[in-house]
């Protein structure tokens, strides 16, 4: 790999220990993936924040990096294992809370903005078209590449941190034009509406791509989609298909930049949607937990929830997971009061995927296909997907 003088200085330790370790990570990845050199990046999203995943060793690594490491670009943080203000009400134990804060403090010491959200693009970490960035968090990676047209590989926690501390990433994969072409033409023949339906579509396409061994779909037949629908679709197709980039004709900014694949590889019809939806609803369900906000709820989704919950009472544990800044807007707009008066709870900074709630509930109802996957695999819940309206109806039933 061709390294600049600055790259070599970093590697030799002239910019401190954390930068040296970071450069070791980045140049090794560059060698593995045949990068020609390093490129400057403009934004980082760091994952691996929940203490449940980091453990003492992960925390020790972060503290070591924080001794002399400082971020060189705008860097935000993925969700933590708890709401940083409201953790007690949400049933998180004190020991976990203490350790979670130690991890967040290590990130803060490095100059990372501790947003604790999987939707950095909704709260001020919004790269523009064509910018090189280094993001972890698979759903945000997919959104940044596809919907925004920025360029990032699927980084892990340490490689994203390394990019933040050096301002660089090896130039390979999705940073290069030739790796951004659509590989598989998918035709959608059914009208879609809502976060749940776009999540179901993400599962269908994701599952098929895994079977085909391909990663970049070119999707036609979708006339329009909201930001929330695309957010849900990104999370789902990244979860089920490992997809980091898709093109959607008429919607995403790069669909016209590369040749469209010639032949339709597969169609998505009404019966496919029904079958996939059935796969996201378990038998013998007893729902005692409802959660909206995977990925983190936007202010629009919170406004809709406030409208649906106004004057109602929920009879089940109901979490709205969102970014702290989004919740602040909801506080000011009065949505928080309406929602909390109905007995639902905000869980900012965290989500039902990373919070330590394994086995705490029997069945979860969500509007997110990604939340179904982790609800089952990680938390051992039974799951049911439905519209945001269905979720509220279930909670107040």
């Amino acid at each position, binding site marked *: 790999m061709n390294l600049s003088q600055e790259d070599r200085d970093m590697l030799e330790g002239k910019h401190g220990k954390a930068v040296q*370790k970071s450069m*070791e*990570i980045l140049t*090794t*990845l560059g*060698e*593995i993936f045949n990068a020609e050199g390093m490129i400057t990046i403009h934004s980082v999203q760091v*994952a*691996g924040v929940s203490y449940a*995943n*980091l*453990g*003492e*060793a*992960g925390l*020790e*690594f972060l503290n070591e990096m924080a001794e002399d490491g400082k971020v060189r670009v705008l860097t935000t943080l993925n969700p933590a294992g708890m709401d940083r203000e409201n953790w007690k009400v949400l049933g998180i134990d004190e020991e976990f809370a203490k350790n979670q804060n130690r991890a967040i403090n290590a990130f803060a010491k490095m100059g990372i903005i501790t947003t604790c959200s999987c939707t950095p693009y909704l709260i001020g970490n919004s790269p523009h078209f064509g910018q090189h960035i280094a993001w*972890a968090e698979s759903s945000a990676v997919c959104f940044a590449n596809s919907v925004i047209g920025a360029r990032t590989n699927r980084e*892990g*926690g*340490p*490689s994203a941190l390394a990019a933040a501390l050096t301002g660089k990433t090896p130039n390979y994969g999705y940073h290069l034009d030739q790796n951004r072409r659509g590989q598989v033409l998918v035709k959608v023949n059914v009208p879609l509406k809502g976060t749940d339906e776009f999540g179901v579509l993400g599962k269908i396409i994701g599952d098929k791509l895994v079977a085909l061994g391909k990663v970049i779909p070119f999707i036609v037949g979708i006339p329009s989609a909201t930001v929330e629908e695309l957010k849900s679709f990104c999370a789902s197709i990244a979860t089920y298909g490992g997809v980091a980039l898709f093109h959607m004709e008429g919607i995403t900014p790069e669909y016209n930049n590369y040749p469209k694949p010639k032949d339709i590889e597969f169609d998505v019809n009404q019966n496919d949607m029904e079958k996939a939806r059935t796969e996201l609803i378990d038998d013998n369900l007893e729902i005692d937990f409802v959660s909206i906000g995977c990925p983190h709820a936007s202010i629009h989704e919170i406004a809709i929830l406030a409208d649906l919950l106004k004057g109602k009472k929920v009879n089940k544990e109901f979490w709205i997971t969102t970014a702290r800044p989004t919740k602040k807007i909801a506080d000011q707009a009065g949505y928080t009061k309406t929602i909390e008066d109905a007995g639902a709870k905000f869980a900012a900074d965290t989500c039902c995927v990373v919070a330590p709630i394994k086995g705490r509930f029997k069945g979860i109802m969500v509007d997110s296909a990604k939340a179904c996957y982790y609800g089952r695999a990680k938390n051992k819940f039974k799951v049911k997907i439905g519209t945001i309206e269905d979720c509220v109806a279930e909670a107040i039933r």
Partner: protein
Amino acid sequence: MKLTGRKIYKGIGEGEAIVTNDGISFYGGVDPDTGKVVEVGHELEGQSIMGKVLVFPTGKGSTVGSYTMYRMKKNNTAPVAIVNKEIDTIIAVGCIISEIPCVDKIDINNIKTGQQLIVNGSEGTVEVK
């Protein structure tokens, strides 16, 4: 016999080989406190990789696995070196942050469990004694 591959992380690790043809997920697949493989149905299930030269095709699973490797190093339950057929990012990053010598692009069929190996991560070589 000396095998030549690609250097992934520097340093020299010497020890007894433990070889598998299954991929390894450090997050969830290995117990960082005991150094034992715990993945159900894995070829090495129940066996310890502590202090051994771990030889396997490639990594799999969650990126959190890199941190698990770091945790094992701190617990003294980590392998002394790693040899892969084709490295993946989780194992590569895990070796770098944990400072475990590592070489890949090695035909692992040439190595048998129980053989003494010297892995030179700085040169990219594996010597079978």
